[in-house]
């Protein structure tokens, strides 16, 4: 399950990182990926399909930068990924992408959160969840969210929402959290930072 919350001064996205066996080296795999310095993606669905989308989105963002020497705005990043996903629903010999993506970023229009579906439809959200138990998570978010929420509160709410549908104990090793603030730098929080937030949330 992955979720995202837009605050007045930034966006937070978080995901559970369930591994199939204790033998898996989970430090090697990251679900949250950077697309531009200011925008990141997370997904729910098929990891390999997500990788392809990330690669495309990154290339397209670099092409944008080469042309305009400006970081591609979040809405444009989303637009181009959505376009690719739509093409795969209407072309021969391919199948639609088996992922829903959440895009979080900060640009001249402020903090933004978008969801992109396999159909290619893209929506802007104040807060949303995708993947397992997303309906329960969204109900939880509806109760907890308000328009004035700030980033620290948003991270807190995100962790609580994640825990609602988490099987087993939630630690900094089996979730990933990322934020982007008004400094326009998208970054994944280190396990230490996540642990601090988790301790607060307990």
């Amino acid at each position, binding site marked *: 399950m992955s979720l995202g919350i837009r605050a007045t001064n930034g966006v937070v996205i978080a995901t559970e990182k369930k591994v199939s066996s204790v033998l898996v080296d989970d430090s090697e795999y990251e679900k949250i990926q950077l697309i531009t310095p200011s925008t990141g993606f997370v997904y729910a669905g098929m990891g390999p399909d997500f990788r392809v989308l990330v690669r495309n989105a990154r290339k397209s963002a670099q092409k944008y930068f080469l042309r305009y*020497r*400006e970081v591609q705005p979040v809405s444009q990043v989303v637009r181009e990924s959505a376009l690719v996903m739509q093409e795969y629903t209407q072309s021969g010999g391919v199948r639609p992408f088996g992922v829903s993506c959440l895009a979080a970023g900060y640009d001249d229009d402020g903090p933004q959160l978008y969801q992109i579906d396999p159909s290619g439809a893209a929506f802007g959200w104040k807060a949303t969840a995708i993947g397992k138990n997303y309906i329960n998570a969204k109900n939880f978010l509806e109760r907890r969210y308000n328009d004035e929420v700030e980033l620290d509160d948003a991270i807190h709410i995100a962790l609580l929402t994640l825990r609602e549908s988490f099987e087993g104990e939630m630690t900094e090793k089996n979730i990933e959290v990322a934020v982007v603030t008004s400094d326009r730098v998208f970054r994944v929080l280190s396990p230490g930072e996540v642990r601090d937030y988790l301790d607060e949330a307990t």
Partner: protein
Amino acid sequence: MSILHYNGGAIMAMKGKDCVGICSDLRLGIQTQTVATNFKKIFPITDRIMIGMAGLATDVLTLDQLLKFNCNMYKLRENRDMKPEAFAALVSTLLYEKRFSPWFIEPVIAGLSEDGVPFISGMDLIGAPEVPDSFITAGTCTPNLNGVCESFYEKDLEPEQLFQVMSQCLLAAVDRDALSGWGAEVHIITTEGVHTRQIKCRQD
């Protein structure tokens, strides 16, 4: 005879205090013969950005259309105007795309950012950019233009003063060039808008 000297022309842009100016002559010639005295070489791109192009007249007109196409598409996609720096980067990219069969023009870009910060930039025909703090020149009399601008330019000129300095520099420079002149046009861009003036000058 160089292709960039076939039609003749002179463009210059200068930074002022919270304003920019861009000016050009109005001559269109076919080598030594003057064919028109109302040939504009400066085109608006947005409310706050203008581009002037010196060089082969057909390419000047075509590039104006190409750039308008690109900027309109940008505006439709992104729902906002392009910033001057982004526009300059775009021009550079478009010119370099034709690296081995170039557009025969030398662009000069003048604009104001959203916050009213002045921006000027110039390039060669394959897109090598220059982003100076003072002035930029292009055309058949760049040695003349560079000379007078260097002498008369001052930082932080008010719009009216900027107009005076640019007009005098342009006139002095084109009067010593056979292929430029026959009328002149100056645009001063401020946060209030663009003030365009034509200057009476020697018609030879």
